[in-house]
């Protein structure tokens, strides 16, 4: 009895050791390239590591929560945070809605050349951001831009899209949604195609209209995709960076398109306030974590 037990014990230990040996390379990679940088980031956030410290690390001072205190008193950070939430809360749902609409259109039975439309809508996703930005900067040009010429036809005065602090963020959102909706659309299309046609036929027999079919059949069937798309879009939109980087010269005008990531980048890599930048990164991490948990909770509650 005891012998068998000991045997089993040592065998499971041996197995555990073998298992550990197998995952060791992966664990080592994760430790070196993930755990160590993350811990270093936490530590950095508690120091004033800056350009002087790059030259002489001895000038680094441990300042505890000093960076966070400075951060909370910096109006530019709050501006960046506000802009980021604006982008996430307006751009995120808009992007998901446009993706869903496009998926329904592309998937509708009446549409011909489905493959063509899918490709066309997906094309912006794989186009280089810089090329897109160049074209959109022309579209948004206050004097020669196509957008303003269309508005002029409708009798609406010229809008200084990227130069007016009030319009810069809507302009960035519009471009970001146009650029990104294709990706989510493909996920929704895949979801839609997995819904059996027979269910819709049964619903029609029972007298359900188009809206009821969408509300009671399509949406519930797409719930897993909606959760996935919602979370991924939110995380991606919180990391707004490239659009202002290439469109508004890093967050202008008057910081109207400055995002938290852009603020972090400027602090860390432009001004070399690495410690302060790490503190911003930590705050952004906490916000995204909270947002993800909240979304998962909401989705779970609905089930």
């Amino acid at each position: 009895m005891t012998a068998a037990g000991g045997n089993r014990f040592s065998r499971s230990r041996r197995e555990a050791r073998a298992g550990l040996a197998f995952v060791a390379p992966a664990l080592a990679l994760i430790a070196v390239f993930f755990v160590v940088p993350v811990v270093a980031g936490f530590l950095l956030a508690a120091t004033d590591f800056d350009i002087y410290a790059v030259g002489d690390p001895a000038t680094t001072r441990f300042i505890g929560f000093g960076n966070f205190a400075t951060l909370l008193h910096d109006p530019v950070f709050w501006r960046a945070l506000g802009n980021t939430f604006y982008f996430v809360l307006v751009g995120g749902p808009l992007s998901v809605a446009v993706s869903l609409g496009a998926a329904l259109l592309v998937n509708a039975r009446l549409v011909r050349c489905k493959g063509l439309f899918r490709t066309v809508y997906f094309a912006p996703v794989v186009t280089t951001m810089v090329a897109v930005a160049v074209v959109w900067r022309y579209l948004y040009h206050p004097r020669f831009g196509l957008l303003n010429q269309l508005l002029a036809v409708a009798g609406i005065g010229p809008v200084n899209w990227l130069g007016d602090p009030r319009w810069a963020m809507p302009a960035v959102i519009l471009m970001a949604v146009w650029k990104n909706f294709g990706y989510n659309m493909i996920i929704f299309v895949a979801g839609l195609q997995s819904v059996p046609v027979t269910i819709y036929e049964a619903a029609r027999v029972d007298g359900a209209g188009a809206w009821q079919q969408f509300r009671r059949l399509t949406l519930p069937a797409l719930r897993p995709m909606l959760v996935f798309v919602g979370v991924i879009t939110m995380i991606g939109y919180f990391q707004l960076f490239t659009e202002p980087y290439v469109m508004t010269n890093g967050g202008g005008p008057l910081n109207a398109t400055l995002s938290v990531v852009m603020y972090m980048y400027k602090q860390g890599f432009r001004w070399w306030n690495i410690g302060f930048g790490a503190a911003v990164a930590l705050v952004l991490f906490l916000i995204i974590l909270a947002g993800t948990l909240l979304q998962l909770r909401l989705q779970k509650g609905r089930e």
Partner: protein
Amino acid sequence: MATGEGTARRLTGPAARRAVRAAFAAGAVLLAACGGGGRRTTLQFWALGREGEVVQKLIPDFERANPGVHVEVQQIPWTAAHEKLLTAFVGRSTPDLAQLGNTWIPELVALGALEPLGDRLAGSRVAPRDFFPGIWATNEIAGVPYGVPWYVDTRVLFYRSDLLARAGVQRPPRSWEEWRAGMRAVKALPGGEHYAILLPTDEWAQPVVLALQAGADLLRDGGRHADFKEARFRKAFEFYVSLFAERLAPPLGNAQVANLYQQFADGYFAMVITGPWNLGEFRRRLPADRQSDWAVAPLPAETAADYPGTSLAGGSSLVLFAASRHQDAAFRLVEFLADERQQARFYALTGDLPARTAAWADPALAGDPKLRAFRTQLEHVRPMPKVPEWERIATAIAEAAERVILGRQSVDGSLDQLQADVDAMLAKRRFLLDRAAGKGPR
């Protein structure tokens, strides 16, 4: 990470570093041996942007004159250069010599990355008096030279001579008031929407130039504190923002100027303050029938008596790195590139203006009337405050002006905020300087 790096550096020490270098050197020798050569010195030279491409045409002459020295030019885009230099310093992989924007010198000197050049210059044919004084000054930190000017960059006034003449402005303005009167006259010309001058609101050069002209120092107490609340800076700042309030300049940033050349040719604006690179661009990009309608002049001064006004002492310098093992060979390359014949040749290849005054006697430079304005302006340039935080401070100045231009803040409110922001940026510098001063007497 910070402290870890420090201990690592201390533990490894010079012996280990020497071992690593020896290993690298052995590798280099092996490579050279494979090439069939004997003992050669390979110089790593980092050059930026287009200069990095073009300088390779000058290198063969240097290699011929210096047998045994091989130069490897690495071309680095301007936008990535600053980051790459700093990471190279941290990773102890700096080159032997590099081209630097001269406003970066204070920062790299603060890091201890650069080799002081005083002793080498003492025995060299390169002498400070061969260069424009304001430009040379950008290479000296606390009296110690760290760089040799390679080419220079400053800002002058490009203007539409035909539009100014039509508005009754007979000569380029010499004082701020003459300038303003001329701008009003241009603005009053009939025609569609147009402005007298383009001053992109996201550029710091223009408000900073005006501040220098008014005699402002921008910082005080050896760069310990901001100095934006004194009368001279304020006067320049008010003059600058008033040009927007009077609608003499459009409130546009660079991103919204789709095509500078097209709009200059169309007369959307009649003046612009810009640098030597646009000399070539204007010649290339303005339509042929506009080529006789533009001219270049030194900047106006605050008062006509001081004409020409001060401008920026910009440009690139050549520096040696403290960690280089081939500093003597690298300095020979610096001397070669600073030579007046090479400078004239470099101008022919790039259009970059020579830092060495003697090179301006070259017919290609002396015979160009538009370059005369630059030649005059370069005698009246002043370096920026030499603190590592300068680039950030400059951005803050542009933002302060932008806040007023777009009507978000009063001049007083904006200057108060600028003063506070820049003082906060200098906090670490104050701490280090005070600590060093405290240590001094002991």
